[in-house]
């Protein structure tokens, strides 16, 4: 159910997320010092390809990591097997990726 390639994908995505989580937390603490408004957020993110790359990579790592983790739960607790399990894994991963990238796109170019 979790073979070596999936195991490595989950570990590598976790490694990528570690610095991004700390970066995200630091940004949140910094950003809300003087209150938080939509204008302030969009003022920083709109047209900023650096933040788009930061959160784009974050979304990609989360999609891979969460899809594999939920695959284990779907197999062990949900009883999904075979193609249904693969389909659920892909649906979760692609779903998270699409929703996340849409959000990144919206605050960067929206």
């Amino acid at each position: 159910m979790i073979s070596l390639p999936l195991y490595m994908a989950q570990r590598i995505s976790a490694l990528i997320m570690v610095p991004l989580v700390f970066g995200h937390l630091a940004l949140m603490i910094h950003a809300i010092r003087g209150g938080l408004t939509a204008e302030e957020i969009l003022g920083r993110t709109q047209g900023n390809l650096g933040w788009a790359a930061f959160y784009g990579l974050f979304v990609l790592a989360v999609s891979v990591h969460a899809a594999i983790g939920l695959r284990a739960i779907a197999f062990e607790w949900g009883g999904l097997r075979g193609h249904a399990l693969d389909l659920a894994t892909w649906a979760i991963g692609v779903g998270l990726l699409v929703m996340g990238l849409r959000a990144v796109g919206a605050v960067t170019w929206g």
Partner: protein
Amino acid sequence: MVNGDLMEVSVWRGKGSVGAFQRFGVPVQESQTVLDVVTWIQQNAEPGLAYRFSCRVGMCGSCAMMVNDVPRWTCRTHVGKVIHDGQLRIAPLRNLPVIRDLATDMTEFFDKWTAAMGRHAPTASRADPVAPVDPASASRQAADAAIECINCAVCYAACDVVAHNPEYLGPAALNRAWTLVNDTRDGARAERLRAVSGGGGCHNCHSHQNCAQYCPNELVPTASIAGLKRETARAWWKGTA
């Protein structure tokens, strides 16, 4: 309880998955083991009771059963240490199909040993000189830490991953594979690492450590499985996985 008192023993009776617990009153004796209790029932109360044992001294690994819902080697488990409110509840090992009463079908347990390449692949023949193995080397010490498995399947019964994932090779088979990965005389390291990297392989372990908690020989299969995860990851980076 003192000698001669009756303890209340519930024993699983039945074929396959169909059955029920049957109660027996068994006299308490000094230094009595759970296997003694089962044997007393078979010899004095229910001659048709099916169970499995051989050496009675913790060597052969054939007498493991669930005792008050915990997997144990019954020949080395004293009643006084596990009895609860004067009662014992004895059932066949968890996670294995039941043949009859307390006897489980161990086929899948040993098939998984084979699937994990639990067989030594020699690199020399009997005509060659005996291979020197340094007992102080890191690889030999890693193998020694895991080598005393008696195949009792207590870890297999304790493992929640086995319970939820029938494909999972289980702690005993993976622990055995780890001893061979660390055996410098073995010639099938790459194949063995591939054998434990499939859909039921070592990467499914959640490190709950139930196997280490209940192993009667106090082995730590979780550590062996973690070792396999490290070595398979190294092989993956090198492109030999």
